[in-house]
């Protein structure tokens, strides 16, 4: 494990991604302390451009709401949805994959056909359909993204389990009297997890994008600022006040980039050793 950390640390892109991600997380988490302006409070200063007035360093939107406060609040929404949806997809998908890999036979068949059924529909369309049915909101966004992304971790874990269940150390644990659930949780799961980490990062990056897209279409939580919704609002004044769409767009790009870089770094660091180039 420690040498994986070392390999990750030697990758400049991965480190940059990690730093960026930490920065975003820190900003999102400390937003109420750092910039305690209410992101929903309107003001008479309408469509103020950035870097003009110290009270609103990044300007204001059409209702005079502070853009910096809205960006920070958007970061909270974005990262919260990404983290919750990814966690839910990993838990549900992981449990299904583990079960399928261990049971085999009918259960395995059923789980894999179900995963395929979910995978043939593009993730965004599936999430869109689910949110349209469930109605906009934070919970339905998270649930819809998770529902669209559980098959990948399920298939990955199933494959790992199929590989590991015949491993000597798993057989030895069975011989040592461990029960099936114990073998699954103590011996198989910890050794099946390394390839799941980079996948989790990919899922999180995709979740950030899907959340923004849903919000852009007006299907996000109406009570929370979201980068997607901000871009949609800024579209109307794209020529006269381009910063309203560009700043949340840039924030979106940076977040997805950061998560993707970390994911790629993880994949690289945890990959089975290749010959040194």
């Amino acid at each position, binding site marked *: 494990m420690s040498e994986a950390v070392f390999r990750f640390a030697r990758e400049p892109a991965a480190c940059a991604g990690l730093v960026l991600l930490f920065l975003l997380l820190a900003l999102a988490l400390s937003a109420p302390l750092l910039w305690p302006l209410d992101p929903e409070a309107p003001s008479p200063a309408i469509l103020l451009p950035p870097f003009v007035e110290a009270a609103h360093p990044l300007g204001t939107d059409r209702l005079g709401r502070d853009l910096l406060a809205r960006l920070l609040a958007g970061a909270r929404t974005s990262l919260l949805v990404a983290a919750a949806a990814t966690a839910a997809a990993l838990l549900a998908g992981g449990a299904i994959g583990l079960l399928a890999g261990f049971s085999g036979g009918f259960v395995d068949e059923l789980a894999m056909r179900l995963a395929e059924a979910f995978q043939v529909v593009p993730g965004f369309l599936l999430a869109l359909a689910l949110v349209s049915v469930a109605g906009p909101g934070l919970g339905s966004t998270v649930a819809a993204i998770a529902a669209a992304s559980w098959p990948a971790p399920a298939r990955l874990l199933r494959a790992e389990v199929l590989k590991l269940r015949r491993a*000597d150390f798993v057989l*030895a644990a069975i*011989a*040592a*009297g*461990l*029960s099936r659930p*114990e073998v699954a949780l*103590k011996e198989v799961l*910890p050794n099946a997890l390394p390839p799941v980490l980079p996948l989790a990062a990919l899922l999180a990056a995709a979740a950030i994008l899907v959340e923004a897209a849903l919000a852009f279409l007006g299907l996000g939580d109406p009570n929370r600022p979201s980068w997607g919704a901000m871009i949609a609002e800024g579209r109307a004044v794209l020529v006269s006040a381009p910063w309203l769409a560009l700043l949340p767009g840039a924030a979106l790009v940076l977040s997805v980039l950061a998560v993707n870089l970390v994911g790629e770094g993880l994949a690289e660091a945890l990959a089975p050793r290749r010959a040194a180039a």
Partner: protein
Amino acid sequence: MKDEGFLLEVAGLGYRPPGVARPIVEEVSFALRPGDRVALVGASGAGKSTLARLIVRLLEPTSGSIRFRGRDLLAARGEALRRMRAEFQIVFQDPLAALGPRRKIGAQLADPLRAFGLVPRRELRARVAQLLKEVGLDPALAGRFPHELSGGQRQRVAIARALASRPRLLILDEPFSALDLSVRAQLLNLLERIRTAHAPATLFVTHDLAVVRAVADRVLVMDGGRIVEDGPVDDVLARPRAEASRVLVRAALHLPRPGGTSP
């Protein structure tokens, strides 16, 4: 129910995985008595390791029967089977592969003690230390991970784990072939000590006739999934009848005798 004196009775045992034309194990029958020292020899691919895994119920046989102390082992399932595992244990060929890579030695040694309910929770640590001492290892190794140990140390740990539940039958599947010669000699001594202390029946799987004399009184020769010869070690080594035995004995003539000086 046959003679109650048998520990293990294997009859007509076969294993053919789905989609494979020829069975890997076919019509294997033999019996062991408590404390027997038996070697199972044969060329690579003869089905020895598969047979070993079938007997300890890590693979599901496709035909035949296994009786352990008179009980039908193949009828046992789930929890009943799990409990019976305390009495028959196996040591694998490659100790690095046989120990969980992400768990400490101590936790893995505690597995059988805990799983079979042999030791109260608060005595686990002390019993693990005792097990490590029994196989000639420093109890401090309990806090290490398998990759931090040498090959010989790892195989001692695997042996200690197999012995933890005081099994009546210990199967050793080519336990020394991943180790160098000096370590082999030490482990042969350890095995002898264990046998005098706990007297489990041992089935020693090997393709190396040089160690057979040291570990067994009787030898089973396997070829193409079948047992082709079964007899006292001295007889089989002096007058091999089956072709497979002759090939093995001829090959062994070029090896140093056990206990002799290495070339």
